[in-house]
């Protein structure tokens, strides 16, 4: 971690992306932030059941990773899925309705906050067992490779997940079978309350992972452009049949691990450093400084997103409650088809 806090991110202009795409990236980051803030508010009001694991502060990782992907590239996500879902193009309507447990929710109210997903957008229902999405993601990549497509699979997971056996087994399969897979480790330095330094024997997760025999990188996950640049190369590798890539994106939660966690276990300097580097603020600044978007264009996006989030809440509230008996359907696919 640098000592002098840099508020600069990688050059926005040098990406070659036009302002439409950059604007869309900004919009998605903002959408994530505002959606999550709204969910938090609703949760504290007692409007939502269960628990929440939020990703404010980690928006750059999700958006920088997903912007190059198509709907038919698949991702796996985790107990903290909202950012990835939004970055991958899911609608706030379908997500918010799910949070309210409604039939119009992306999982018809059966999934909830930890299982958001939508196959139309290539989002496998989020897997809330830490690490378990990794081999599944490798399997998706295997399927895509066998089908001789150019599609790829991307797995999101946290720093804590790398100590799970499933991670180990899954990433190794991607290497030995040279699969079109990308592993995005969101290193926010904590697995729940436990600091990364207590649970792995290397400085970075990339060091720990390189020995599987694949390209690895550690980068500033609050720099959406750094994420984008790195993922872009990984996407090319995957689509060209050159195998998997591992990218460690260092980032930070601006919220607790779940619900009302006050983060009392965090290291103060570390927290101060990271909280001062809000990925949305950094990106906004860069967009304006490099003149890719004007202040007023950005404000327009901000206004739109605010409205969109409000609309999603209104929509969700008005959606249909499931009937109790709806619980009984959807267990098997065959049954639904009458075989």
């Amino acid at each position, binding site marked *: 971690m640098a000592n002098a806090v840099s508020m600069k991110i990688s050059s926005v202009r040098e990406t070659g992306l036009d302002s439409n795409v950059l604007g869309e990236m900004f919009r998605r980051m903002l959408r994530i932030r505002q959606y999550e803030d709204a969910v938090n508010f609703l949760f504290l009001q007692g409007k939502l*059941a*269960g*628990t929440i694991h939020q990703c404010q502060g980690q928006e750059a990782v999700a958006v920088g990773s997903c912007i190059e992907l198509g709907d038919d590239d698949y991702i796996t996500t985790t107990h903290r899925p909202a950012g990835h879902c939004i970055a991958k193009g899911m609608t706030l309507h379908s997500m918010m309705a*799910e949070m309210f*447990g*409604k039939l119009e929710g992306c*999982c018809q*109210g*059966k*999934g*909830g*906050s*930890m*299982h958001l997903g939508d196959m139309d957008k290539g989002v496998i229902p989020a*897997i*809330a*067992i*830490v*690490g378990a999405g990794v081999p599944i993601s490798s399997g998706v990549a295997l399927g895509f490779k066998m089908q001789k497509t150019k599609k790829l699979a991307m797995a999101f997971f946290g720093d*804590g*997940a790398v*100590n*799970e*056996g*499933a991670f180990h087994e899954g990433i190794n399969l991607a290497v030995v079978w040279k699969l079109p897979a990308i592993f995005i480790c969101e290193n926010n330095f904590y*697995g*729940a*309350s*436990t*600091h990364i330094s*207590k*649970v*792995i024997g290397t400085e970075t997760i990339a060091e720990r992972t390189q020995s599987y025999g694949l390209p690895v990188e550690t980068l500033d996950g609050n720099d959406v452009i750094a994420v984008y640049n790195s993922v872009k190369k990984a996407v090319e590798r995957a689509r060209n049949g050159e195998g998997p890539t591992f990218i460690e994106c260092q980032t930070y939660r601006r919220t607790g691990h779940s*619900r*009302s*966690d*006050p*983060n*009392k*276990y*965090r290291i103060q300097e570390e927290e101060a450093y990271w909280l001062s580097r809000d990925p949305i603020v950094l990106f906004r600044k860069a967009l304006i400084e490099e003149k890719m978007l004007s202040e007023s264009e950005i404000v327009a996006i901000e206004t739109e997103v605010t409205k969109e989030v409000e609309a999603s809440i209104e929509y969700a509230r008005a959606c249909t*409650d*499931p*009937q*109790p*008996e*709806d*619980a*009984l359907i*959807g*267990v098997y696919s065959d049954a639904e088809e009458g075989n």
Partner: protein
Amino acid sequence: MAKMSIVEALREGIREEMRRDETVFCLGEDIDVPGGFGGAFTVTLGLSTEFGHERILDTPISEAGIFGAAIGAAIAGMRPIVDVQYGDFLFCAMDQICNQAAKLTYMSGGKLKIPLVMRAPVGATTRGAQHAQSLEAYFCHVPGLKVIAPSTAYDAKGMIKAAIRSNDPVLIFEHKLLYGSKGNRSEASSLSPTGEVPDEDYIVPFGKAAIRREGKHVTIIAKLLMVYKALQAAEELAKEGIEVEVIDPRSLVPFDEEALFTSIAKTHHLVIVEEDHLGWGWGAEIAALVAEKAIYYLDAPVKRVAARDVPIPFAPIMENYVIPDAQRIKAAVREVLI
């Protein structure tokens, strides 16, 4: 005597045994990181203050690893208490629990002791299918394990102490809605029963059921949260003149057959209630035991009330429909009494 919640009773039980025997220690994810949670449901909160971080050992997220490590430490002469944050994660350590912990003693020709306590919170709390399961049946089926499921503070303390002193692997199921955890980690729909807990040392031995309410018309056997749902049903049915006897097995393996048979010899009717799934669930064995050994006591077929056979859905409307409630229990009682 002190009034305690189950979470306090478990914590005190662990504390007393850790004081008594320095080979006892806890390991698990986030069990007492300074400033942290004290485990997913605060059972181990603050214990590191007294015992230090060597004996309250925070681990990586590696269920197979830490259950394996607990087995190894037990082999080395320690008495580990290992936990998962949610029972559902036991599947990640399934090989270590079922193929190793449960079998090593036997494979050694009975020579190797595995004094090991495994803790697992169960029950549905509107968190969706992967944080909701009741997993008792899977583990009752494994010869070599002991399985307990305390539902009161008194039993929680007495049984965890018995488990710690046992020389065998013991799996203790704790219900999330019965803990009575406080602060940030309290649960919305929690029942939080508190109860009298003696100050002096005591244990609750395994294999003895508790009769939570006496009655003469019908027996309900229920465990964990369902004990309370059954008591609620019994209360309501009493107003109609139906006297329900409620049995809480507490210890699932070994199981107190006699208490059950004695009760149905009196009531002639049996309803089995649990939060685990119906098919091949814990209750199936209870029904089977009765069908084999005590069927002549009954005046009517047995009836099981259990979670419907679907993964647990998120939306409260559906979750409530899947998990048994007093309403369904009452209907079952009426059915067997017809």
